[in-house]
């Protein structure tokens, strides 16, 4: 599955390690939440980065104590209709200040990139290469946003108020 980061197909540095499989001594790994929570401290002591795949049915609160030591959190879209991970993403970024890679995995349509990026995702495991190619174009589609999110884009309301302010200042 192609991984899109910063608008380009990138090689995935993280190795998915299945639950039963042995952890490599070093290198970046991506493991399940269950595996991680069995012994987080031991895993975080490894040489190499740690990423966790967090299910969308579990509150992110349990992940919060480890966030500053995680290099990646992968949130899951079991179908492209299931939008729980959007809330998780915003909570991780905006409430808990998570700054590492936030990866969208599972079923993703390119038509959802804008929503995902606004919610805080910055890495996308897409289904088709064509989706990856379309990333840049898709992200340019919208120039107006109504809601404030942690992505820092200025909302329509704020733009209007700034405009009004500068108009009245200029009079």
């Amino acid at each position, binding site marked *: 599955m192609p991984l899109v980061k910063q608008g380009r197909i990138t090689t995935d540095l993280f190795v998915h390690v299945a639950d039963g499989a042995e952890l490599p001594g070093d290198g970046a790994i991506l493991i399940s939440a269950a595996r991680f929570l069995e012994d987080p401290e031991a895993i975080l002591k490894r040489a190499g980065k740690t990423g966790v795949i967090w299910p969308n049915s579990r509150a992110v609160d349990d992940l919060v104590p480890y966030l500053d030591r995680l290099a990646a959190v992968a949130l899951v879209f079991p179908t492209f209709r299931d939008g729980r991970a959007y*809330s998780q993403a915003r909570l991780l970024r905006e*409430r808990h200040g998570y700054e590492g890679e936030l990866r969208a995995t599972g079923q993703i349509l390119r038509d959802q990139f804008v*929503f995902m990026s*606004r919610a805080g995702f910055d890495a996308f495991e897409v289904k088709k290469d*064509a989706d990856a190619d379309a990333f840049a174009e898709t992200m340019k589609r919208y120039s*107006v946003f109504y809601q404030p*999110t942690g992505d820092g884009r200025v909302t329509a309301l704020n733009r209007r108020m700034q405009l009004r302010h500068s108009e009245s200042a200029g009079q």
Partner: protein
Amino acid sequence: MYAYDELDRTLINERVSEFRDQVKRRLSGELTEDEFKILRLQNGVYLQLHAYMFRVAIPYGTLSSMQLRRLAHVARRYDRGYGHFTTRQNIQYNWIKLAELPDALAELAEVGIHAMQTSGNNMRNVTSDQWAGVAPGEVEDPRIWSEILRQHTTLHPEFSFLPRKFKIAITASEHDRAAIKIHDIGLRLHKNADGETGFEVLVGGGLGRTPFIAKTIKPFVHGRDILSYVEAILRVYNQYGRRDNIYKARIKILVHELGIEKFAREVEEEWKLMGDVGLTLDHSAIEEVRSRFSYPAYEKLPHMPDELKQAAADPLFERWRKNSVAPHKVQGYSIVTLSLKPVGGPPGDATADQMDAVADLADKYSFGEIRVGHEQNLALPHVAKRDLPQLWRALDRLGLATPNVNLVTDIIACPGLDYCSLANARSIPIAQELTRRFANHDTADMIGRLHINISGCINACGHHHVGHIGILGVEKNGEEFYQITIGGRADENAQMGVLIGPAVPYAEVADVIEDIVEAYLALRDRPEELFVDTVKRLGVEPFKERVYATR
């Protein structure tokens, strides 16, 4: 009226171009039907029995004459010359071609109309009182808040893929015309003891398979906090709302399963944790939105102009006036309801020619403004009383002066089996038959306010649960049967109707309704006692007896 500015227009156009691209990818096969489905639904496009159905938003029910003309144009150019106004302040077209949809949307976008989120599992088009801004005694114009919410909920990055659809309705009047208690979130604008404006917030209402009346989750949320509070509700719902079963995925089920107290605690906690995330609306933000609503330059007019006094001699005019003309907050003006329920017609349908003509009348008599209400009627919100006789004559020529507003033939009905792929039974022909049975205005007048609501299946698009008389199509051994409920209502005292007994076959429905009405006439304790009040006083038994004794 609210005027879209450059930013709103840009966003709508960007949406059209995105959808154009999505349709292109669907037609080329690049998108599967499964993938396309969620995308088209977010743009109001359904795949129905005969063709694609296209649902266009009329936010809080307000239209300019220019916009209505454009809706007429779309009906003519892309459909079969008519449109269907629904119970959710939108208009549906039933015969649209997929390949032409982007062009239709682009033409609508030119006049600030879109179809965003008229469908799909996101926050739907915010609805409100069709008399907003003109009803006497209103706290303030609820459309300002509807517009604030419209913007906030449009393409929301967190809530565009909710467990299910999500509907918000707002009222600012004592008398609730927006049916807020049967919405996922109902907002009632009022003032607290300090004179500050805020909302009573209700959650978990809805009809369909499992009907619920919304419960109050918080008696007062200050206006400045309404976005963050709504966001907190939605975040709790997005995380905990069921997704295993689409019939149980609505917020009403979550509220019911947790109990309102527990749900309220969850929301309160989320709301506190949320802190300041830029959602608080300070005074200038509210004023910014308010400033883009314009109001007519009303004249100073007499309360009772000569034209009206003269016209009162004509009993036909008087009948219509009593029925269709409501008081306005400004002296000398009225609100005029245009009935889209002619005898023998499908409720809510309007032809392109009628829409154009209404737009002209709005320009002439109503400062270019039209309203659409959930009863599937239109209204002209600012008509000078002196113009009422002329307006009436013009409406009469158009077939839009049927004096039956709120009477037994002002029937609300979904499309049923005539258009809808989910239907179990026909709705429109039942409505048509009933309008013929009760066509006599004197009888209808004598019966008084009586709302009949018809749905062709349990999804309740015709709001049958809250009809004073509700008719629900069900299927039995491949035949159309109808369950009848009575005593429902959708106003500030909203309540679900009660089933009166076994379902009856198609051919008997109109007779049964006649029986119920006759029973009411015999049972009411005075002519002013409304049908629903008689049912409330006596329960369903006497009606049941009357209907089933001879069947």
